[in-house]
């Protein structure tokens, strides 16, 4: 059902029907003392043409993946978006519908979300997924809350190599809950230190959260990490910030993850300066009543025809109130539709091909940069499409020089780890299928030219 605004004639007919002169009169009960008696302090309205020119002027102030040669990753990725995606989601039934979940008139939307849930289950190797969350970071926080809730334990271990914004968001969600959030260090391969996990995991720990791949682009050994976690009957939570990797890596569910969350932005959603993005959340069958978020279920109507509905609503806050599994009463339906269209277009084979290109191109960049005098690769762990580079002369200076040359070379890491001095020389470089060999060579040349 699409949104169609009222015409002036319709408004006047409604006013006449209820015996009111104007829309302003409907606010008659608002005391005069609090009513604004002047126009809003806004500039004059512009025509459509003037407005477009003004936005173009403002946009020209930004350095983007379009204006610059960008090798930026770290939780938001520049992947190719097929034209068919925009074309399909622009249908007004999808684009302008508001909260289209009544099964009587929204079977299309509900079916699309059900298919999204199914795709997430297939990619993550889990039994069920919810209708989506706001983004990877909040999905990660909800997973921590779910672990604490279902295990009735107060301690959670978070890898230091998990995305810093995810860790910050978890801390925010847990702030007044009297929980013990403990950091797991990484070892020199850039992955979570298994010896530290062995030492810190105990019967008071509800869950352990690691990235897959992690913030440094390193592919964590989930199966190995799962062992001590499960020995103490805790939950392993895998946070997938770059799910294109799932086109090539084994699904976390097969490796022992109990909850899999992540960021679906890579599946056809533009970078858009940070949003709207798409959180996904998947868990095992027996945990379904503990899951947060909306769930679309498949059923039959009284004539035996297949239909889709929001189900297990008794988990949610509008019914269970303060005992609900979450306070979320929304999802990212349009973005979930984008991901569903993207994944359907690519298919299993296409996703694998995209992932292979990411892996190959990043490996080429990895080799090339490693060979440059004054640059090294500090972490030895296997990576997918991004990796950490260390510049002898310091990261910020190198990246500033590159920016002058129109290249956004990477994300400086010092700001995320102020207590770890060696991070000041390091930056995170991301290469996707969008980069050509020529462009990667340009990065290498710029690093070699300006670099050490």
């Amino acid at each position, binding site marked *: 059902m699409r949104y169609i605004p009222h015409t002036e004639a319709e408004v006047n007919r409604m006013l006449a029907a209820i015996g009111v002169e104007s829309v302003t009169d409907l606010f008659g009960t608002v005391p005069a003392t609090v009513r604004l008696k002047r126009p809003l302090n806004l500039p004059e309205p512009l025509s459509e043409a003037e407005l477009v020119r003004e936005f173009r002027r403002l946009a020209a102030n930004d350095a983007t993946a379009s204006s610059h040669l960008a090798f930026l990753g770290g939780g938001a990725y520049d992947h190719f978006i097929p034209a068919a995606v925009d074309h399909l989601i622009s249908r007004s039934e999808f684009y302008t519908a508001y909260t289209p979940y009544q099964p009587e008139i929204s079977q299309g939307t509900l079916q699309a979300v059900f298919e999204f849930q199914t795709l997430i289950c297939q990619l993550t190797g889990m039994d069920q997924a919810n209708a989506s969350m706001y983004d990877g970071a909040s999905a990660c926080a909800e997973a921590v809350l779910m672990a604490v809730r279902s295990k009735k334990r107060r301690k959670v271990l978070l890898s230091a190599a998990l995305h810093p914004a995810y860790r910050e968001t978890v801390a925010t969600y847990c702030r007044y809950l009297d929980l013990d959030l403990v950091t797991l260090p990484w070892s020199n391969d850039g992955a979570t230190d298994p010896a530290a996990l062995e030492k810190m995991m105990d019967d008071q720990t509800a869950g352990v959260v690691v990235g897959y791949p992690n913030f440094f682009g390193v592919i964590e050994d989930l199966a190995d990490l799962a062992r001590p976690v499960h020995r103490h009957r805790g939950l392993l939570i895998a946070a997938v910030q770059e799910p294109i990797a799932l086109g090539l890596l084994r699904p976390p569910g097969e490796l022992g993850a109990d909850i899999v969350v992540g960021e679906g932005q890579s599946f056809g959603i533009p970078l858009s300066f940070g949003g709207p993005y798409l959180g996904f959340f998947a868990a095992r069958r027996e945990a379904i*009543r503990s899951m947060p978020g909306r769930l679309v279920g498949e059923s039959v109507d009284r004539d035996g025809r297949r239909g889709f509905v929001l189900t297990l*609503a*008794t988990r949610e806050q509008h*019914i*269970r109130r303060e*005992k609900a599994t979450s306070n979320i009463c929304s999802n990212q339906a349009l973005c979930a539709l984008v991901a569903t269209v993207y994944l359907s277009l690519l298919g299993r084979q296409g996703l694998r091909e995209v992932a292979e290109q990411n892996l190959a191109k990043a490996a080429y960049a990895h080799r090339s940069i490693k060979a440059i005098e004054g640059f090294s690769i500090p972490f030895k762990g296997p990576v997918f499409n991004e990796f950490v580079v260390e510049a002898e002369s310091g990261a910020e200076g190198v990246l500033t020089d590159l920016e002058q040359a129109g290249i956004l070379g990477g994300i400086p890491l010092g700001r995320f780890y102020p207590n770890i001095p060696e991070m000041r020389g390091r930056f995170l470089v991301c290469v996707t299928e969008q980069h050509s060999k020529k462009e990667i060579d340009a990065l290498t040349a710029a690093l070699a030219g300006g670099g050490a």
Partner: protein
Amino acid sequence: MEFPEELKYTEEHEWAFIEDDLVVVGITDFAQDALGDVVFVELPEIGTMVEAGKPFGVVESVKAVSDIYAPVSGEVVEVNEELSDSPEMINTSPYEDAWLVKIKVNEPGEINDLMDAEAYQAFVEEEGGD
């Protein structure tokens, strides 16, 4: 609506019945009718200590969730395992097949503090429930 004579009742719509030296607990016909189709029951583990007036479990229907309150204090010694596969028994047989737990009470006399069938029926009618 049924109000079996031999049972005792609480204001939260649970029933209690002495069986040998245990107290059997369930929810009333009025409660199951108000809830609608029951789909899930969350019961405590055997060995759990429950306190009179405090919630010890949850009954979930398609449209609502309700805490179940202990009518007496004591230890849960038996739990109706069949409810996990057939929660709908609460709707079809709230007083017989769908007993929830059996409690070994601290004070055998505590059950006498509860309402009898007549008082409960009056309570329900006064609440205006139908």
